[in-house]
Each structure stands twice: as C-alpha cells, then as structure tokens.
C-alpha cells in the first residue's frame, strides 16, 4: 500500500512537472525573432566626392 502511494505520488509529480507544450509547436519565425534581435540594417553614407 505504502509502495503504491509512493508510486502514485511519483507519477503525479511526473505529470505535473511535464511542461504543457513540451513539443515545440512554435512557428520557426518566433524562434527567429527571439534569437536574431536586435538586428539593424546599415546606414547610408554621404558621398566621398
């Protein structure tokens, strides 16, 4: 009985501790946004002349 309670407790811990969205279903551009920022284009320089 004691063993069963421990097992049940462990199992419930496992269930609760698992993140809801363990599988990455984010679109790739969301990932890109997180990692690429901050990105900046180039300025345009005045002429050398």
């Amino acid at each position: 009985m004691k063993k069963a309670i421990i097992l049940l407790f462990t199992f419930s811990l496992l269930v609760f501790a698992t993140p809801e969205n363990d599988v990455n279903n984010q679109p790739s551009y969301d990932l890109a946004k997180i990692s690429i920022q901050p990105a900046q284009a180039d300025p345009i320089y005045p002429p050398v002349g």
Partner: protein
Amino acid sequence: MEFGPLIKFYRTQKGITQKELAAGICSIPHLSKIENNSKDANGETISLLLERLNVSFEEMEEKEELIKNLLKDFGEKINFYLREEIEIIFTRLKEIEHVIPFSDYIYSYELYKYRYLLFKGLLAEADTQRDILYKQKKNFSQHEMYLFRYYNAVSLILKGNHKKADEIFDELFAENNNETTNGEFLYHLALVKSALDQPGHAIHFGRLALQIFMNQHNFYRILHTLMLLGINYTNSNIYEEAQVCFKHLIRNAELLKEERMLPQIYHNMGYLQDKMNNPKNALLYYEKSLSLQPVKNQHYIVTLYGIGEINYNLKLIENAKECFLQVKSLSKDLGIKKQGLLAEFYLIHMESPEKAMKYLEMKVIPFLEGSKEHKEERIRYYKLLSQHYNQQGNYLEAVNYLSKIT
C-alpha cells in the same frame, strides 16, 4: 612655359622642317638645341619662331595663366562639391590640354585629372591615371606628392579599403603636426574612421570639418558632414544629437530641394529610430526613403533590407519574406554580396533556424571576417552562434564564438 618643346610640337604638327622654320631667324643647330631644351633662347628668337608658326608668344603666356587659374578653380569646385561646375572647368581644361605639357602645371593637371576621375567614381580610369602619375612621382614637388598620396587614400576609400586609407591619412596628418585647415581632408578622415567602427574619432574629425565648411559656407559638404555626424552619433548611442542632425538635414535638404540626399536622410533617420527601438517609426522612415528612390541601386537594396528586418521583428513575416526575396534577387543582379547573404540567412531562418545557423557559419561569418569592417555585425552573429551552441549543449563551440567577441 617650356617654349622649346612647344615650338617643336607646333612645327611637327604643321609639317614644317627645322630648315624652313629657322630660315632667317637662327641656325638649324641652334633651333635644334632650343627645341630640345638644351639651350636657352632669348625672348626675341622665341617670339619670331612662334610668329612663323602662327602662335602668339603673349597668347601662350596668357594660356599658362589660364591653366593656373582653371586648376585653382577646379580644386575649389571639388572642395565645394559643385558637380556641374566641375564638368564645365574640366571641359575648358580639356580644350587647352595640348598646351598643358609645356606649362609648369603638367603634374598639377594630371593630379587634378586623377581627382576628377575619383570624384566621378570612374575607378578603372582613375587606376590608369594613378599608374601614369606613379612613374612621374620622382619629379613631383612636395605639395604634388602630398596630393598624390591624399588622392590614393581617397581611391582606397572608394574601393572599400578603409584600413589602408586610414594608414595614409594618419601619416599625412602626422606630417602636418596633427592639424589641418583642409575641411575636405578632415571629412574624408571622418568617413574612414566611421567605416572602421571608430565613431568617437569620426565625430571628432567630423566636427572639425563641419566648422571649416560652415566658415566657408560650403553647403553641400555641410549636409554631407551632418549626415556623417548623425550616423556616428547614432552608432555611439548619442540619440538626441543624432536626431538634431537628421532633423536639421531634412529641413535643409527640403529647402534646397536636394532630392538626391533626401531619401538617404530618411533612411538614416529610420536607422536611428531602429536603434532607439522605435520599429514602427523606423519602418515609416525607411518606406518614405524607398518611395523616393526610383533607381534600384545599392542604396535601394540597403533600405529594402532594412524594411525586411523591421517587418521580421514586427512578426509581419509575409512582408519580410517579400522584401528579402527582392533583396536576394537585386543583390545578385547588382553584385552586392552583403545584403544578399543576410537576406538569404533570414529566408532560411524562416524555414529552419538550424539550417540558418549552418549558413551563418559557412557563408555569412567568413564574408564578414574577410573585411576589416562590419565589426559590430560580426559580434552580433558571434553572440547568436554562441547562444545557439549553448542551447544545444555544445559548450566548446559556444565558448569559441564568445572568445571571438573579445
């Protein structure tokens, strides 16, 4: 003026023999020595010889004075960035080009010709002119030598070799006891420092140049220097000063109807807004800039790429994709590598971030490392790769990229 070679030039051009020309004026050997500059002839003999050739002695002296004044004017117009007037003076110089080799201004003329070709961006022709001048450099005066080295540095800027240009500028500046009243020189020096990611130095020299241009009422160069200062204030995170520069520029460019510069100013205002984390404002300015750029050239690609990045960061992925696809295609047509590579990186990243990281390592990083510039961007992508490897648990590679930053 070198009258001996001048007499020889006109005699040959008119198909007259030495005997015919010398008859009644001087002996043939004497004429031969005059023509070869091995004997100084008196003014009267020269006058008589020129008269027989239907060339006026006074006219030749006047031409020498004209060459001197035209060259002085030519240098000034280049300093003032007056494109149309430069063309007019160059045409006038071309008209008397056949006399110039006999004047004291032969090297000055050839040097200004070199400067003209650089001004026009005709780099291949400028290189040929540089090679011609290089062979003559032992005959240059001190000032001519200074101009030759300075123009070589300008040529290097135009070719994107800023590191080498910087070395020449530093040498020239040091030889001048680290001071100069030449606004053009200071402006070019500021341009080089800016390209080498030294915004502090660029601001220092830019401000010195601005002061000189303002004293000269050199309006075009004031606008150019303000633009350069605005970019460097932006890169130094001195945003208020940058905004002042760009607002001032927009006002003046609109007032002067400076249509060529206006889209570039709007672009740089967008660049500033992007840095200030105002992406929506940045997008507005970039789009305003793009709408004023009818020609699909390098500037167009830079602005379009900026729009792509902002759209991407604002999660407007379809818009971003459209921009990057256009950038990719245009950069291929125009042979502009940087924006093409970066646009491709984003496009791959939309499909597979993992593949994009490989692309970054294989294509983008080697390109950025190949030049002395793009330091800030290199750091950004090193951080990105380090973060990527860190997430993957590949700490060795993560540390490798981190160590490249320092």
